């Protein structure tokens, strides 16, 4: 795994392996390296050292970061980490580098349209096998009396619609899978 090369990612430079956490819709790349008092945290714009985390149990820990100690409450739910530090709660989603690599390298032609908020499907305006273009309406959803149109992210062909009219879904749920045209 360490020798995977992301040659298409020129922004990475010399480092071969990075990990990605998505927070509030933004991807953050980072990696850790060991140092004497724990680890060095490498972010795109800064390096912070030392950092150390001691878990007291599966929901309670102490983070030491650049000399400051912060109590942390957390829950690890698969790839999703819910973290509370000094009264502030955030959710971070770990993007497995293998999966990230797969979509970047184009091995998997899937494109997805995800739900921007939790809600219910009102109407679907496309069907499997249909050619669709970027910006085209795929379905109409409703959440707490707000109606939103889910639009196609890129030109392609509708592969599968994952929810039927009247079904409810969570935020980020994959609503429609598409394949690239000409596959």
């Amino acid at each position, binding site marked *: 795994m360490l020798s995977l090369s992301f040659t298409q990612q020129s922004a990475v430079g010399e480092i071969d392996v990075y990990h990605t956490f998505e927070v509030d819709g933004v991807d953050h790349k980072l990696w850790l390296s060991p*140092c004497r008092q724990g*680890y060095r945290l490498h972010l795109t714009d800064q390096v912070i050292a030392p950092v150390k*985390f001691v878990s007291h149990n599966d929901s309670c820990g102490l983070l030491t970061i650049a000399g400051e100690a912060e109590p942390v*409450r957390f829950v690890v739910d698969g790839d999703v980490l819910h973290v509370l530090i000094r009264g502030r709660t955030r959710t971070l989603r770990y993007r497995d580098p293998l999966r990230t690599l797969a979509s970047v390298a184009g091995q998997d032609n899937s494109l997805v349209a995800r739900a921007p908020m939790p809600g219910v499907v009102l109407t679907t305006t496309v069907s499997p096998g249909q050619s669709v273009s970027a910006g085209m309406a795929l379905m109409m959803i409703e959440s707490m009396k707000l109606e939103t149109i889910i639009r196609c992210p890129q030109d392609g062909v509708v592969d599968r619609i994952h929810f039927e009219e009247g079904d409810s879904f969570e935020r980020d749920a994959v609503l429609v899978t598409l394949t690239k045209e000409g596959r």
Partner: protein
Amino acid sequence: MHTLPFDTVLIANRGEIAVRIIKTLRKLGLRSAIVYHEVDAQTPAIAMADVAIEVSARTPIAAYLDIAQIIAAARKANAGALHPGYGFLSENAQFARAVIQAGMAFIGPTPETIELMGDKIRARNFVQRNGFPVAPSAIEEDDPATFVSKARAIGAPLLVKPSAGGGGKGMRIVRDLDTLEDAIDLSRSEGQRYFGDGRLYVERYVEDPRHIEVQVLGDAFGNVVHLFERECSVQRRFQKIIEESPSPALSPELRERICETAVGIARAANYQNAGTVEFIFGRGEFYFLEMNTRLQVEHPVTEMVTGIDLVAQQIYAAAGRELDFSQSAIVSDGHAIEVRLYAEAPERGYVPTTGKVLLLEYPHGVRIDSGILQGQHITTAFDPMLAKIISHAPTRMDAVTKSHRAVQELVLLGCETNAGFLARILADEAFLGGQFHTGYLEQNPHIAAGNTSDGLSAFLASAALLTRAVRDSADAVPELHAAIGSWRN
């Protein structure tokens, strides 16, 4: 100790208020019965009630509005009284009548009072006729031909409202009289769409208004008292977020006048049981806005400063007892603040959030009225309020500090909430100074927006160190290589 004429109360509600009512029923030695829709099966009230009866309908909300099923459940549970909570059927006169006709006590005011105050125009006219202050207004129904000219005569700024309305829907502020007719057309079509009724009224709009309401309590013997006021101006889209008592805006003299006015209105209506009179206050003047003939969400604020259990008082009144304290015996002590915890993201336009409550720990030293449990799924089936955090302290500043500490200490992981937003309001200069009105949040969008990048590295560090794959890659990297490796653009 006098016994009550019923031993079982059916609660026709859910969430935190159902829990709240059960707590008092237990205190009074009464049996609690509750109706619930399947989606609420894992909520705390269901486990706490002595009897829980499932009701079903096309949607979860419709189940709690199904009068026939609810009455049948009450009969099945041998309930002698029914508490409607707030929302749902609590202000439905037809429901109140059905409960009474079924031989049960309805824990609330009489159906006639519910009808009077439920019709906003009728309520307003009633209050005005009895000599209490209402905002200058024009009612279309009275004379459609002169409505627009009368509205114009009130002068700007004014508010155009559907008369069948509620919750702020269809309301419009008109500051430029040239736009009055358009505003009337739009509000009319919205009134028709949301309430099936296009009739309107217009009212003087108070600039920088503050929402001040007074808790009242009446019995069947003509006694009516007030339990002081609550200020509920921190709101967005007419949804309250923070409430407190006493109001930082009122002088003792104004406070007395508003509370006495509320009592006068309730007395004129022969009001029984608990209710709240709402006023709009601004520039030293106050006007009657509306009366809510039910227990309100923010009632804990009043309970904390007066030491009076409002649900118990409601039960006694419904049991036909006379109020056993006079106005002079009711004293307001210290300051109480309630903040509402919602499953929503103020940082993203207050969009509703969902998820499973993976970890839940409440802060200490404050009162928590909650409708959620660890392990529960938060969905969009109902209103997004999760819990209320109420603090009580000798001074306002102490209460604010206590509330701020509490929302920071609250642990709720798995579903995003507005806890961070509440903390920002409680630290905001304008709020601390008591200088705000109902437009406060709208005029200060930075409070909702927060600061997304603030402190992010601590979160990334925690996430990285908690993720085995990240640690494993680190442990496999020789220290020297790591020291020279760098990002390059």
